[in-house]
């Protein structure tokens, strides 16, 4: 098997984990929380009526793919990217890169990764993993979700890379092109924090950032009128748990991973107040986890009366209040 000297590491999130492992392979000593924080990955957005979504939903991180772009901007590193219309050319290009011993990140639909237990497989078109070797039709994969390297057949990999639907991967590949000789890590960390604070406090769109959280807390009371029936409503309410705790969130809607970033940032910037804010965000994350649990319970028990939804809305509004206060304090540190 063509196999590279690639160090596999489990990560909290597929996109930040993939970028981190490629940078580490290139010789840059950087952690996953730093990649997440420098890219300004923490976010919130509520989408009540959007063509792309059949039912209201929310996001707790920036747009998939954006982390790579923002890391390039702030660290000065360069990734080379490729997209394909034709699956055969997409697979040939990947083989060529692996044969040249270049670890290559792929965007795939998670559902086709047959090394994932069947009960965990769902259609998510924005999963990222690194191909690090091949032999015949078997590929060696470093997938941040797993403790060890895994193998995948070419047919499954091709299906995953060329799945259709919303945000289809189109065979997207990327690999590290270059790392500058000097990186101003302090400046990168500060810029990442400023970007996160802007996104959460000042972005002039009413459904994004803290304002988005408040909109979510109000609009969730309208969900029963939008849902087809109780079963549908229950499914959508339980999805709150999935969006906050599953799908590579790192836990508590990315709040824990950002807290770890702030802890590491406090050392890089030599600012103890960031360590205090890190501890505060861990507790804020615990509150999001309580929301997950509450939503999961009322959804599973079909206990979805107006009173329960109001309680859920109040819990979300409370997170908006504490996060507004938190990000105001954070914005004053840089």
């Amino acid at each position, binding site marked *: 098997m063509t196999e590279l000297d690639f160090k596999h590491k489990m*990560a909290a999130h597929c996109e930040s984990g993939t970028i981190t492992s490629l940078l580490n392979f290139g010789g840059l000593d950087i952690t996953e929380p730093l990649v997440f924080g420098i890219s300004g990955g923490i976010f919130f957005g509520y989408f009540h009526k959007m063509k792309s979504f059949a039912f209201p939903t929310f996001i707790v991180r920036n747009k998939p793919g954006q982390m790579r772009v923002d890391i390039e901007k702030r660290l000065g590193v360069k990734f080379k990217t490729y997209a394909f219309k034709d699956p055969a050319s997409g697979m040939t290009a990947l083989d060529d890169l692996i044969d040249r011993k270049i670890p290559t990140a792929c965007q795939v639909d998670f559902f086709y990764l047959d090394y994932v237990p069947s*009960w965990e497989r769902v259609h998510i078109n924005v999963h990222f993993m690194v191909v690090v070797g091949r032999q015949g039709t078997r590929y060696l994969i470093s997938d941040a979700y797993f403790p060890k390297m895994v193998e995948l057949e070419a047919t499954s990999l091709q299906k995953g890379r060329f799945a259709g639907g919303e945000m289809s991967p189109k065979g997207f590949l990327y690999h590290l092109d270059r790392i500058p000789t000097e990186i101003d890590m302090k400046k990168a960390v500060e810029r990442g924090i400023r970007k996160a604070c802007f996104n959460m406090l000042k972005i002039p769109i009413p459904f994004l950032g803290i304002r988005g959280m408040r909109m979510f807390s109000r609009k969730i009371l309208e969900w029963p009128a939008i849902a087809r029936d109780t079963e549908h409503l229950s499914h959508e309410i339980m999805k709150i748990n999935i969006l906050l705790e*599953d799908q590579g969130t790192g836990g508590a809607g990315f709040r824990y*991973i950002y807290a770890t970033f702030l802890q590491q940032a406090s050392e890089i910037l030599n600012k103890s107040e960031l360590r205090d804010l890190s501890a505060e965000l861990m507790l804020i994350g615990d509150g999001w986890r309580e929301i997950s*649990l509450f939503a999961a319970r009322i*959804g599973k028990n079909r206990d979805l009366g107006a009173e329960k939804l109001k309680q859920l809305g109040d819990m979300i509004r409370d997170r908006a209040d504490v996060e507004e206060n938190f990000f105001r304090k954070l914005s004053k540190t840089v």
Partner: protein
Amino acid sequence: MSTLAIENIDPAAVDDEKPLFGGGNALTLDSVDAIEIIMAIQRTYGIRINDQNLAREVIRSVNSIAAFITEQRNLQPS
């Protein structure tokens, strides 16, 4: 078992080594149970599992949960 409000399964019938998720054990749990267990570990032992991929490994079986809690308690200053 009480945290998960499971009343119809004898705890002795649960295989400590077999996976708790995906079938194959007397007790088959789902994603709601997963968050219940994670929160119960945090509340009971003060151990926050702040990485959901680690969480998936930890709550794989009764033995993996026990091993994780033991390991974390040994790490905590006495």
